[in-house]
């Protein structure tokens, strides 16, 4: 299982703050998980569309599409940050 967190506008658009997901065979990176979530369709496909420039973190470090995801990891998706 992996833990997936959603923040800010992405949490609102998907209606989900956190979930646990079994990591299917063959899914081993951030892009793989994004594809999995997009396949849910509807609000998920829309919120995670390419144009939304969604950012990701693996175990609380900023990550790229090809960053590895392993069982037990904490994955987070969020819009570009706007602090400060």
């Amino acid at each position, binding site marked *: 299982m992996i833990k997936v*967190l959603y*923040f*800010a*506008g992405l949490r609102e658009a998907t209606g989900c703050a956190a979930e646990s997901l079994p990591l299917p065979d063959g899914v081993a990176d951030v892009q793989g998980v994004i594809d999995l979530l997009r396949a849910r369709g509807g609000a998920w496909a829309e919120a995670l569309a390419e144009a939304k*420039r969604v950012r990701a*973190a693996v175990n*609380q*470090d*900023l990550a790229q599409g090809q960053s590895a995801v392993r069982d037990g990891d904490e994955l*987070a998706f*969020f*819009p*570009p*940050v*706007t*602090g*400060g």
Partner: protein
Amino acid sequence: MMSVRVQHEDFDVGREIAQLRQGNPQIGAVASFVGVVRDLNEGSAVATMTLEHYPGMTEKAVGKIIDEAKGRWQVYDALVIHRIGTLAPLDQIVLVVVSSAHRGDAFAACEFIMDYLKTQAPFWKKEETPGGARWVEARASDDEAAQRWQQKS
């Protein structure tokens, strides 16, 4: 030394600087930056804004930014305080304080930390405007401000 604090409460800049300097006669310069809530953004009046963050990652990300600053400039101590929750125009949002032997290092490290915080620390702002609530969009100018520092190294 470094510290990162994420809090709802306001902060007292004078007190924070005094604490950072306390008992260290090697410090010759302290640079600080205070970010404040404006009443106008993207052409709309802002009544209040609410800041959220990613607990755990925030502290880790800002800690890494401070470490990076310490690798580039001579820095004794650095402090970052970032507020979360609901804030109104005039409220303080963020404080960065850097102490060093000389002003050049203190100024540069302070600006670097702030530029990187804007693009890498997981905070998000939602504004209440007359047209309703809206998430603040990231600015290209913030990315450019952070990229300046990459060209130097």
